[in-house]
């Protein structure tokens, strides 16, 4: 088969199948002595499949007993040749020996699972491996690209040149310029005129109002009426400080009946 040439490391077993000369014999030496090429086998199942094929019947009809004998014979010969066998070959041998002895027992003495079942499962596995091996061979024998059929070695290739059409509106340009100018124009910082009542003016105002009467006056009443909230807060703060200052100078006295209660102020008679 032509695909053999493509397969590396394959023992020459496909042809040998027609002429079974013993075990896995890729050939014989001049003396006719067999030699084994265990490297070529892909494990015990591979050996079993090859042995089964040599029965020259459909894989569904193979004799498992004959197969077991052939496998055990294969291993015996390997031992004679003092070949080192991988453990899985020996495990398979032990299992097959067990299978053979079970199959030779009268039916009623057979254990569960029955040897027939084990034999059938082995057969099914060999069929599957055999099917895939055949499929692989058929696949490899197809007209393969680069071996049997060829594409153009160096096609020109299809090129798509992408060009960009840039889009921008007149207004965008003008607006962008405006924003650049606005952003980078020298900035002049001006502090806003905030409505405040200075301490001096609060002192003047509170002193003047205290001079009018000897009664207690609530601090709020010193504030300018109708003042906007900001000015009012400022006036409250400066009037409070002014009241403290007047109290310190002995010109006024302060009273508060409860925490956060209204703060009252009265002139001290000189």
């Amino acid at each position: 088969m032509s695909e053999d040439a493509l397969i590396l490391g394959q023992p020459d077993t496909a042809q040998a199948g027609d002429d079974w000369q013993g075990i896995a014999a890729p050939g014989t030496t001049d003396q006719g002595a067999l030699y084994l090429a265990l490297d070529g086998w892909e494990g015990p199942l591979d050996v079993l499949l090859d042995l089964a094929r040599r029965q020259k019947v459909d894989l569904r009809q193979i004799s498992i007993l004959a197969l077991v004998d052939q496998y055990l014979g294969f291993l015996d010969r390997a031992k004679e040749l003092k070949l080192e066998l991988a453990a899985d070959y020996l495990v398979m041998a032990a299992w097959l020996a067990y299978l053979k002895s079970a199959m030779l027992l009268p039916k009623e003495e057979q254990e569960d699972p029955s040897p027939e079942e084990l034999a059938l499962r082995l057969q099914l596995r060999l069929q599957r491996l055999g099917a895939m091996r055949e499929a692989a061979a058929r696949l490899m024998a197809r007209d393969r690209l680069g071996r049997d059929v060829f594409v153009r070695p160096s096609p020109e290739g299809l090129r798509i040149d992408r060009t960009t059409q840039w889009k921008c509106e007149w207004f965008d340009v003008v607006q962008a310029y405006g924003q650049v100018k606005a952003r980078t124009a020298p900035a002049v910082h001006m502090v806003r005129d905030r409505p405040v009542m200075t301490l001096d003016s609060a002192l003047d105002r509170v002193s003047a109002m205290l001079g009018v009467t000897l009664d207690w006056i609530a601090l709020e009443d010193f504030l300018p009426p109708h003042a906007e909230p900001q000015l009012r807060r400022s006036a409250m703060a400066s009037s409070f400080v002014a009241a403290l200052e007047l109290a310190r100078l002995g010109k006024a006295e302060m009273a508060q009946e409860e925490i956060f209660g209204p703060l009252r102020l009265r002139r001290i008679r000189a």
Partner: protein
Amino acid sequence: MSETPDDLHRAIEATLFASEEPMTVDALATHLGGAAAGDVREGLRVLAGHYEKRGISLVERAGRWHFQTAPDLAHILRREQEQVRRLSRAGTEVLAIIAYHEPVSRAEIEAIRGVQTAKGTLDVLMEAGWVRAAGRREVPGRPVIYATTPDFLAHFGLASRRDLPGIDELRASGLLDPVDDAYDALTGEADDPDATSDSVTSGELAPNDEQADDAL
């Protein structure tokens, strides 16, 4: 077809001739400035017919079209040095198992082959561009599963996986089913309530069956 091909046929011909890669109908339609996919498909059919008996063929592989030399002329074209990657026997078997069973996990491949798969085997197939990881199987361990690629179909001259040699027969005869399924089918699972425990027992006896059980 007539001796004077129409413009669309000529355009498809030229495009596929110059393309570095096989092209789908859609890719062709897009490249040809939005030709109707139906027209392109019909054009490809006509062209494939025209080239049928020539030294060049127009072929479809995995839904993508390309020109290649006629297979029967292999003998005059085969190069001194084959450009085809040489695969080991393990490589060809693993490739076949993936192609006929895809998607499959490594354990499932090993269950069929009865041996462990060398690390390099799958790598070689993936490097060749014939096999790819196709996700994970949602079973304990979440094993990676493998499938073939469009390049695989192109290389082996297959229009689709349905063209895999003998796949219908293999499927019909149950040879693509796992051993356990085939066993149950053969023995009739209904009258064999112990079938499950049996298979576990046999798994213990035959070391290689463990892998098969893992896979299932």
